[in-house]
């Protein structure tokens, strides 16, 4: 195989002028669409291997207990049961409802046999006070639930910023001041494919194969190396398709370790996917928070002082919450003071979830901005523009306002009133994100028969990553997307990043571009003698290459490749100048509130996002719409419910933990901010999920004057806010 890195590089890769693009910045149907739409796509959940065992874990139903006994005898003698192991011994504690509550693992010849064995395990345990709510954790004498063994309190060290006295002084001088306490619940990721793995064991000198529903094909071998007692290079992880991660699938977790251990011990392939109830109990969540926010403004609306006192609720983890003033600015930075601490409960630790902490911060801050605007009689959009630094936010707010009909809306600087119990309102919110980019590699191989492979060890969480792995190469070489084979989801491929924080596109797309560019120059080097023009003076378009300025000197793609005596391998790497680090968004929501029944119906949502160069406008709109849908679901419906007395997680199912469905969907408009002409690319997983629920809450307030300070915006919340609790 020849390598293009041998030849001198004639130029740096570039995304090119937008007007010259044939493939990118257009609607590109995803390349794995047909296999997904027909059920042919194989997810980890779907892997079937000869002799495969079906494994399950047993999760203790309440968060805290002392184990008296775990009797495996009956289970181990049941038909088809091959492996049973207790993970706790008598006297051990269950300290929280998360991976620490996994008591046993079983594996059997069939899924039913595994379930039967699980049911036959007899556990005796003494239940302890559950400590599932922050209030319980803060009670005098509450048991300490922290994961840190030396912890002596359920309260983490407070992160204090700013000078409270300065903030107080500024607030005292403000014309309008609002102070509210917001309760933001814990949200589950609800990946439709639960966490899990299929592990195929192998002799020491061969690779163990692990199918994993993961956001980190590249990191998973290291995560399983110790369990399997072998070097990470002897573990191959495959993720051809995966059913959602949203930040919860960064490592193999206990369930991955168990799958690996059972495979190792039995010498047979093992399929271990969490059940839906397991998933709710032990697979992470977005942390909640309780925030008391006090903000003051001058008569012109400019914010002048701010104080935040916040508790983060991340179970046994710390939780996330960015500091104030979230995205907005205060006239004098020194008048911002905050104290943020973690309150620990004996519940599953929070994990990253799309823009960790940001939707929580947005909810409180946007509410304060709305309320100050009303106190001062300032238009909601104008109020935001006066307190946001970025011109990008200004233009985006104006655009979403126009799209949602703000100009014609009758009450823009005060809440409306219900007529015959019906009211319509509009609300707004903004977002920022720094998607970043870091080391990533990609190999592009061109074979003499004209076939092209673009390969990198990334994973497609549903973002459309696989499609741009092909499309970027297609653009560079003037080919159709379907002429490029995209290979991803395999840890043996050139390494790429873990998909978190919208970093995947900013990392892998530059490496793909770099590889494609090198491949092109490698081919152009061959053309120097054939078409008699130097490297860098060719146009690749429509399956042809021609000399720039002389279309008579051209060759079809297949003839170019025929010049190769062996496959051409181009190895690309991350190029910093090809990615973008900061993006902005604005959203608007329009709702109808029935003040007699408490019904909130979201009528319309609009988002405007900048992003540098859109690689695939179709997938980009999907991401933006998807962000709005998740925020709508978060705001309107989602509720984790614990029984506070005994500690049962009641909402460990999709009946009680309600996510938005088809009939919740408003009219949705995803606007791509094409005024952003930066020649760079970035991911779009986080930014669009940040402000939607805040805009909806603002719209409810704008409709009828009810400021909801907790989520979700269900009938009980709306009616109790309007009329008080009965």
């Amino acid at each position, binding site marked *: 195989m020849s390598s293009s890195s041998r030849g001198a590089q004639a130029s740096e890769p570039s995304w090119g002028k937008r007007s010259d693009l044939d493939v990118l910045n257009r609607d590109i149907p*995803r390349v794995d669409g047909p296999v997904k*739409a*027909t059920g042919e796509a194989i997810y980890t959940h779907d892997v079937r291997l000869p002799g495969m065992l079906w494994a399950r874990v047993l999760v203790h139903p309440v968060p805290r207990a002392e184990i008296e006994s775990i009797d495996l005898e009956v289970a181990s003698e049941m038909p088809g049961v091959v492996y049973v192991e207790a993970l706790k011994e008598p006297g051990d504690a269950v300290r929280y409802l998360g991976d620490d509550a996994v008591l046993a693992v079983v594996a059997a010849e069939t899924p039913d046999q595994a379930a039967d064995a699980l049911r036959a395990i007899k556990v005796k345990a003494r239940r302890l006070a559950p400590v599932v709510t922050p209030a319980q954790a803060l009670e005098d004498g509450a048991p300490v639930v922290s994961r840190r063994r030396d912890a002596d309190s359920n309260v983490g060290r407070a992160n204090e910023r700013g000078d409270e006295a300065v903030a107080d002084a500024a607030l005292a001088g403000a014309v309008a001041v609002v102070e509210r306490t917001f309760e933001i619940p814990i949200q589950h990721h609800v990946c*439709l*494919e639960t966490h899990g793995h299929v592990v195929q064991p192998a002799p020491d000198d061969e690779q163990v194969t692990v199918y994993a529903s993961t956001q980190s094909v590249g990191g998973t071998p290291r995560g399983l190396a110790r369990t399997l007692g072998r070097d990470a290079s002897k573990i191959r992880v495959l993720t051809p398709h995966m059913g959602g991660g949203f930040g919860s699938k960064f490592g193999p977790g206990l369930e991955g370790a168990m799958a690996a251990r059972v495979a190792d011990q039995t010498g047979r392939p093992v399929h271990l996917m969490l059940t839906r109830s397991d998933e709710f109990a032990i697979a992470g969540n977005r942390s909640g928070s309780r925030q008391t926010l006090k903000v003051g403004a001058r008569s012109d609306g400019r914010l002048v002082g701010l104080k935040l006192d916040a508790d983060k609720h991340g179970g046994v983890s710390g939780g996330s919450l960015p500091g104030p003033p979230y995205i907005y600015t205060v006239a004098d930075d020194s008048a911002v003071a905050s104290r943020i601490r973690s309150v620990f409960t004996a519940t599953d630790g929070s994990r990253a979830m799309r823009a960790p902490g940001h939707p929580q911060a947005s909810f409180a801050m946007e509410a304060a901005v709305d309320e100050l605007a009303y106190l001062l009689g300032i238009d909601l959009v104008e109020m935001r523009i006066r307190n946001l630094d970025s011109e990008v936010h200004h233009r985006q707010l104006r655009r979403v306002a126009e799209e949602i009909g703000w100009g014609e809306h009758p009450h823009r600087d005060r809440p409306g009133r219900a007529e015959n119990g019906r009211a319509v309102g509009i609300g707004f919110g903004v977002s920022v994100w720094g998607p970043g980019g870091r080391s990533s590699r990609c190999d592009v191989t061109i074979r003499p028969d004209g076939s092209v492979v673009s390969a990198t060890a990334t994973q497609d969480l549903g973002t459309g990553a696989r499609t741009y792995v092909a499309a970027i190469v297609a653009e560079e070489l003037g080919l159709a997307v379907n002429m490029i084979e995209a290979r991803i989801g395999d840890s043996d491929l050139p390494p790429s990043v873990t998909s978190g924080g919208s970093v995947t596109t900013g990392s892998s797309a530059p490496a793909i571009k770099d590889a494609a560019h090198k491949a092109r120059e490698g081919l152009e080097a061959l053309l120097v003698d054939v078409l008699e023009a130097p490297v860098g003076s060719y146009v690749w378009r429509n399956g042809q290459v021609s000399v720039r300025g002389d279309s008579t000197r051209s060759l079809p793609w297949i003839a170019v490749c025929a010049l190769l005596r062996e496959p051409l391998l181009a190895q690309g790497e991350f190029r910093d100048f090809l990615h973008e680090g900061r993006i902005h968004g604005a959203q608007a929501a329009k709702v109808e509130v029935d003040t007699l029944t408490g019904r909130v119906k979201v009528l319309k949502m609009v988002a405007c996002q900048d992003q540098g160069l859109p690689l695939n406008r179709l997938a980009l709109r*999907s991401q933006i719409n998807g962000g709005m849908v*998740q925020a709508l679901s978060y705001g309107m419906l989602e509720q984790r419910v614990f029984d506070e007395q005994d500690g049962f997680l009641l909402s460990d*199912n*999709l009946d009680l933990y309600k996510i938005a469905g*088809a009939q919740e969907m408003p009219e949705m408009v995803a606007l791509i901010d094409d005024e952003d002409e930066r020649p760079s690319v970035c991911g779009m997983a986080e930014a669009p999920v940040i402000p939607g629920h805040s805009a909806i809450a603002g719209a409810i307030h704008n409709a009828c004057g009810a400021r909801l300070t907790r989520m979700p915006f269900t009938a009980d919340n709306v009616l109790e806010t309007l009329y008080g609790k009965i």
Partner: protein
Amino acid sequence: MREMDPSSGEPSAISRRSFLKGATQVAAAGGIIQATAAGAPAEVVDPEVETLSGTSSLELLVNGKARSVEVQPRTTLLHALRTHMDPPLTGTKEVCGTGSCGACTVLIDGQPAYSCLSLAVTCAGRPVTTVEGFGSADAMSDVQQAFCDKDGMMCGFCTPGFVVATHAALDRSPKASLDELKYELSGNFCRCGTYPHVFDAAAAVQEDRARGEEGR
């Protein structure tokens, strides 16, 4: 048997007893279910009532093909498809297992069903259509093609269920308005948030089919 129209003037001559008896003749279904030599034999407890007990062999009609499968009475159609058949049909997904999400949607007798709540043994003799039955990656149905064109999928895990539900919705209500489409798709849930794109896909199919009708 069905006398639906109150204005038809048909007298209600039959007594309730015969109402029930009469209907019995219509519904008596053939028992394709049988005991197998390999599995535990179906024990006949009451000679007058057919009883299925333990593992037995069942013939299912899936996507137009007879598929033999060993099941217990408790085996759901979903598990029969995904784990009992050889080769398995894994396009139908299991997400909740409690009939709450729609990922396991198939058609039974042409009607949409949660296969996780349908016992395989009760599907004997009733045609079952899974996502694989509508098309393949090389020869997609119009709905599948529209899902690709409009990006009616992201992670894709809910997609097979949505494809089947969309076929059912458009069969049931070919000219459905957007609100009616939402109603007919309200038994399927997506976490990535593809709904607006799914609606676009369904609308595109409606347009294409309407154009096809006109052209005929």
